[in-house]
């Protein structure tokens, strides 16, 4: 990548998105887990104190992370206008709509009800608090839906018509029911649940290994296992389908994911490890597993797929001269790391479910398994990054697939201002990510009964006695 304004802008967008997603994937998943915990606390009156300890503990982790997710989201939204103004002008008619919907339907909901949930402990009836955290959880899913829908549209533009120098929306229902977007949404959702589930699993395992607060953490471990199993299955199946879909609507990306230069044979083998020579357009070394390629692409052991070299010729005919081959090495390896980690996580989740079923209470004492869970904490995050890099790099040189190249979308900013902005963002991002991890670790280690000397202060103390606040006494 050349370091001109375009290169810097791409780097800036990628870093903002990846940093943002670091926080947001956890927020989206954890919100749901906490909502479930709070639901159990509400309905299981006999165990209410255990579960409300649990929600407070994980809720605290959630809040530390939530704040950074919100603020990095502002950058995410503003950068379309700042760095990609030509893109914004071209597709604003269409792309702006899901983005505006995200703000109106989700951001306000999340930011308002998170405050009501957390600070409303002594002011709201339990059922209203429960509703608040559910609204936050639903808000995070709505938010994920609209932004992924917008991203899905860039991968498979539908329901539009180009008039002059702008793309106009002709059919909003086509945009909403874009199958590509739905696959991406399920995949992102599944991976967000996986991120949160494995964080909860890892923290629970940490405390169980030390036999602290076993009552709380043995239960959160089981909730985490359920979410982990659902999350990994969702990511794996929707990811598998998304790759198959890419074979016919983004064939170049699919070929790059498999480092397939010439059109494959039928049945097609699957490349496990390859040394890719991009300049000469071939692989110097390739370990292939027979039949697996066809199996993955078609769910049956026959069928071939096109290679990058014939596709390049085809694209040149269709879109004019240019290089339509994405950075193959990046796409290929990130895809493999993502899939590999996904398989490990799937096995870890189902291994835990199996142990739970076989050993019942003994799961808390299966030390090797608990230690393994500690190691899995960062894996879903890494898999997420690799997944985003695969899908976004695999789309190059297009910004909107087949419609607008990345170089056409960039703003006419000066090199200096983009460079200074990028450096500033990186400094702040690195500081925030470091602080976030540090604070999450300290808080997670301290355990259930730790209270920071003062939480973020709400409107403190209703100080007028007997004016009706006592009736909202906390139930436990």
């Amino acid at each position, binding site marked *: 990548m050349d370091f001109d304004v375009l290169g810097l802008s791409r780097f800036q967008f990628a870093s903002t998105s990846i940093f943002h997603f670091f926080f947001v994937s956890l927020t989206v998943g954890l919100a749901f887990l906490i909502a479930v915990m709070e639901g159990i606390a509400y309905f299981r009156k006999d165990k209410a104190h255990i579960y409300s300890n649990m929600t*407070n503990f994980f809720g605290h982790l959630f809040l*530390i992370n939530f*704040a*950074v997710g*919100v*603020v990095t989201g*502002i950058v995410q*939204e*503003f950068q*379309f*206008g*700042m760095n990609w*103004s030509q*893109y*914004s*002008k071209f597709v*604003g*008619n269409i*792309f*702006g*709509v899901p983005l*505006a919907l995200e*703000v*109106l339907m989700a*951001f*306000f909901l999340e*930011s*308002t009800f998170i*405050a*009501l949930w957390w*600070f*409303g*402990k002594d*002011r*709201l009836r339990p059922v209203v608090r429960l509703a608040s955290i559910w609204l936050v959880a639903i808000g995070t899913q709505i938010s994920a839906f609209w932004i992924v829908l917008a991203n899905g549209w860039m991968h498979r533009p539908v329901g539009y018509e180009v008039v002059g120098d702008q793309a*106009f*929306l002709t059919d909003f229902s086509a945009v909403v029911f874009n199958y590509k977007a739905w696959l991406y949404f399920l995949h992102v959702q599944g991976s967000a649940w996986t991120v949160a589930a494995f964080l909860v699993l890892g923290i629970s395992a940490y405390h169980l290994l030390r036999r602290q607060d076993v009552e709380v953490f043995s239960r959160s471990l089981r909730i985490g296992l359920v979410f982990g199993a659902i999350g990994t299955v969702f990511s794996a199946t929707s990811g598998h389908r998304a790759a198959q879909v890419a074979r016919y609507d983004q064939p170049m990306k699919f070929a790059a994911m498999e480092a397939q230069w010439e059109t494959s044979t039928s049945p097609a083998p699957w490349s496990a490890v390859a040394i890719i020579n991009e300049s000469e357009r071939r692989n110097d070394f390739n370990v292939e597993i027979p039949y697996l390629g066809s199996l993955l692409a078609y769910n049956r052991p026959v069928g071939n797929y096109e290679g990058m070299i014939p596709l390049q010729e085809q694209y040149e005919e269709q879109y004019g001269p240019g290089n339509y081959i994405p950075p193959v090495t990046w796409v290929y390896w990130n895809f493999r790391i993502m899939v590999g980690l996904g398989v490990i996580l799937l096995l870890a989740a189902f291994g835990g479910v199996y142990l739970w079923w076989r050993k019942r209470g003994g799961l808390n004492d299966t030390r090797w398994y608990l230690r393994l869970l500690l190691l899995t904490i960062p894996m879903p995050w890494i898999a997420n990054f690799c997944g985003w890099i695969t899908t976004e790099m695999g789309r190059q040189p297009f910004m909107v697939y087949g419609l607008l190249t990345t170089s056409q979308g960039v*703003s*006419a900013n000066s090199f200096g*201002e*983009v460079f200074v*902005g990028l450096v*500033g*963002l990186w400094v*702040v991002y690195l500081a*925030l990510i470091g*602080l976030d991890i540090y*604070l999450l670790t300290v808080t997670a280690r301290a355990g259930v009964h730790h209270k*920071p000397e*003062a*939480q*973020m*202060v*709400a*409107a*403190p*103390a209703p*100080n*007028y006695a007997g004016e009706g606040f006592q009736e909202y006494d*906390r139930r436990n």
Partner: protein
Amino acid sequence: MDLITLWFWLIALTFTLYFFLEGFDFGVDILRPFLAKTEAEERALVGTIGPFWDGNEVWAIAAAGVMFSTFPVWYGTLFSGLYPVFVIILLSLLMRGVSFEYRNQVDQPRWRAFWDWMSFLGSLLPSFFWGLTMAKLIEGLPVNAEERVVGGFLDVFTPFSVVGGLATLLLFMLHGANFLLLRLHTDTVLYTRARAAALFWGALATVAILAFVVMGYVTEGLFNSFGVGPWLFPLAAGLTLGSIWFGLTTRRDVFAFLMSSLTIVFSIVTIFIALYTRQIVLPSTLDAAFNLGLRESASQPYTLRLMTWVGGIFLPLIIGYQIWNYYVFRERVRPDEGGLNKGYD
């Protein structure tokens, strides 16, 4: 009223709500170092905006998001044209947004002092630069024939835009002080200090706003396109600004806050009237032929119709539950023992 006009005014509404709401939480954070002498007071001041600032901030995202979908050309040109300004705003908001959550996580005076600085600067800089952005909307940017802005960072600082930024900053401080009068217990020393601050910063704000209006009148032709009707708005802004002094000296706190809110509302409306009566959303300082026209910058009717449905349903809903949020946390704050940790258990 056609849909383009409607959405132009809805953008004005989101900006107005943003400046009105985040205006006071910015103001509280800027005043914090001047008002708080002890840690308990510091926390009480944070507590006055604790449950609200996040929801307030989303109005900025809403303004940008709505602008993106309904006026993509305006959005693209303005945001790329003021690139360095928005970088500063973003970096400030990033640090400020986490400061609330992070300041109490580690029990060290230095750690807290660092985050207090971040929320001070993180409120001061955006207040100034949002005001500067509004002034730039009137004054225009060097937009060329390709709807692109030429020129460097220092070009955004003109006497008019700097005064616009300062006026906004001071007005927010006054607004924040007025908000504190509603949120603090009236028998605390903090309350007394907040009143003094309102009178002091309010006087400076009045001077800055008058300077802005005079400059707008003389050098920018801000009011040239105004007929008799639109003149009511700047006049109303002047009247409400003046009456804050009356509210403060006669201890009518609600009245004073209401008046500073209305001053903000009328000021933003005045700016948008100036754009509307000229039918230009962003003037070009290079050549009037390159001005971004109101109609030419808008989305096509289908998108606008769709957005009208969405806005019609969700904007009232959002305003509704935000009001409820303020109602739930309506009781006043006092910086003495027992109450401060009540939000957490």
